[in-house]
């Protein structure tokens, strides 16, 4: 699960690094992605694994639209107004999902991948394993894009200093919109992967979003690779906390880990802010 958490969080981290906005509707983006995967499966008979590009594309478009429709207008406002706007978006998306799709719980049954493999005494489901690998691959792809391609570098430059970047001839507006698109596409992929083994309903995103915030902060805001480390750590603590402590407190263990880390290093593990 750690890699999936990391991928969900990566989108959040990217957007944050770029313009210091925490997207409170992140969990709802995930929900939308899962519905995309579900309907691709239910109507077009596409396995979630196959429809991943579709989910990424649609979510990317959603991110782009949201940026131009809402975020651009509150960019210069105070941080709290931004939180407020994305919170409203979260409520809107969630209720829109209920309005359109109803409240039934949906699942993709008979996915392409099923079964399990044994790693010593521990069993791991194949869908989870595939999700982890795909999440890791998406992550590497994201990282390469950010560090190698010209656009990626422009994104990073914008993240570091938007005014300097603007002076260098980088269209920051375009970069911001692109950041939202890519960040949302990451969630699109994560949602598609998750749909292979998780149930889908309008409120599904909330618990994931909470973990995503912790994951991002744990790794350090604005550092996308560090988010991967954060995600893995969260996944491990969740699994082992549930195994050796009481499961009811496994998320408490995750939160306690976060508190421990930031009290020791107030910028998260590898943060630059």
């Amino acid at each position, binding site marked *: 699960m750690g890699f999936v958490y990391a991928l969900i969080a990566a989108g959040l981290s990217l957007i944050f690094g770029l313009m210091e906005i925490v997207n409170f509707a992140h969990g709802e983006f995930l929900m939308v992605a899962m519905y995309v995967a579900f309907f691709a499966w239910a109507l077009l008979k596409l396995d979630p694994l196959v429809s991943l590009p579709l989910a990424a594309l649609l979510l990317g478009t959603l991110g782009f639209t949201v940026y131009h429709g809402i975020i651009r207008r509150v960019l210069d406002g105070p941080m709290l107004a931004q939180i*407020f*706007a994305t919170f409203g978006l979260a409520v809107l998306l969630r209720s829109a999902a*209920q309005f359109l799709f109803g409240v039934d719980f949906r699942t993709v049954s008979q996915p392409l991948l099923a079964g399990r493999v044994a790693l010593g005494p521990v069993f791991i489901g194949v869908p989870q394993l595939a999700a982890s690998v795909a999440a890791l691959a998406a992550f590497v792809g994201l990282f390469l894009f950010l560090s190698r391609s010209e656009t990626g570098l422009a994104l990073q430059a914008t993240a570091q200093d938007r005014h300097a970047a603007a002076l260098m001839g980088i269209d920051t507006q375009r970069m911001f919109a692109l950041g939202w698109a890519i960040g949302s596409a990451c969630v699109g992929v994560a949602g598609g992967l998750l749909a292979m083994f998780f149930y889908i309903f309008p409120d599904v995103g909330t618990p994931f979003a*909470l973990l995503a*915030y912790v994951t991002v902060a744990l790794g350090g805001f604005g550092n996308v690779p560090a988010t991967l480390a954060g995600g893995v750590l969260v996944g491990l603590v969740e699994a082992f906390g549930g195994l050796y402590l009481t499961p*009811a407190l496994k998320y*408490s263990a995750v939160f306690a880990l976060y*508190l421990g880390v930031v*009290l020791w290093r107030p910028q998260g593990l590898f943060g630059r802010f």
Partner: protein
Amino acid sequence: MGALAFPAVFTLPFPRHVMIMIFLYGALATAWNIIAGYCGQIALGQAVFFGIGAYTSSLLYTRVGLTPWAGMIGGVILAVLVSQVVGYPVFRLRGHYFAIATIAVGEIVQALIINWDAIGGGRGVFLPIKRPDSFLNFQFHTSKAYYYYIALGLLLLALGITRWIEGSRRGYYFRAIREDQDAAAALGVNVAREKLRALAISAGLTAMGGSFWAQYLLFIDPESVFPLSLSILICLVAVLGGVGTLWGPLLGAAVLVPLQEGTRVMLGGTGKAIDLLIYGALIIVISVAQPGGLMGLFGVSRGAGSAR
């Protein structure tokens, strides 16, 4: 004046209920405003103090038989103690790290309460209905007017404390910390101590709200008094009205509560979530059109800088 006469004008319980909720959320948001609006620390764990207030007064009442009024004071004391113990380490953090840390604390506390069997765990606490109404028992079944005035009193207390802070030396310290913590420290403000004081005041007021809530509903469980959604709602109310202003949080409550109740009452029974659809859309519109909070409409400039 108008607020005092309101119960006489509107005799039906539902408008009174809406007014009580406005006062309660107004008070909670005002309390949050002290730590977040004036002192600049975006704390998203207010539900911890709210829950402590609710549980302390309820348990003291059901187990020991102590009047909820005394329990309320007990809740305030406990909440202040907890705020200091938790606040001491967490206040070293800044910005988003601090905000998420407060969420983490809130989630941990909720999980602990759910698993704490001796105080009811997930089953919560039922408060026995006592008749006839008595001020001592803090239960009024014949008329909501009592609850109305108590909630109003709570709000006035919160506003009064805020007003007092605004004008006092402490208020300047708080705002100095908000604008630039390092500069404030350089000027000789004991930053750590002032933050803890702001949190203590905020926590105490929030705990009183919690005790009131418990007596108003007569049933509490960890899902209803310790949730993250409550902490966020408190924040939303204040942000909507305008943080860092005296009247902003109350204005936010006066708009958000009727909006929420109104849309639900009119459209909530359909099962189609149209009410929340409208609610979400309006929040977006407001934040885009009036990012500084609704106080901006009245020409009150925001006192608050952003908490970047």
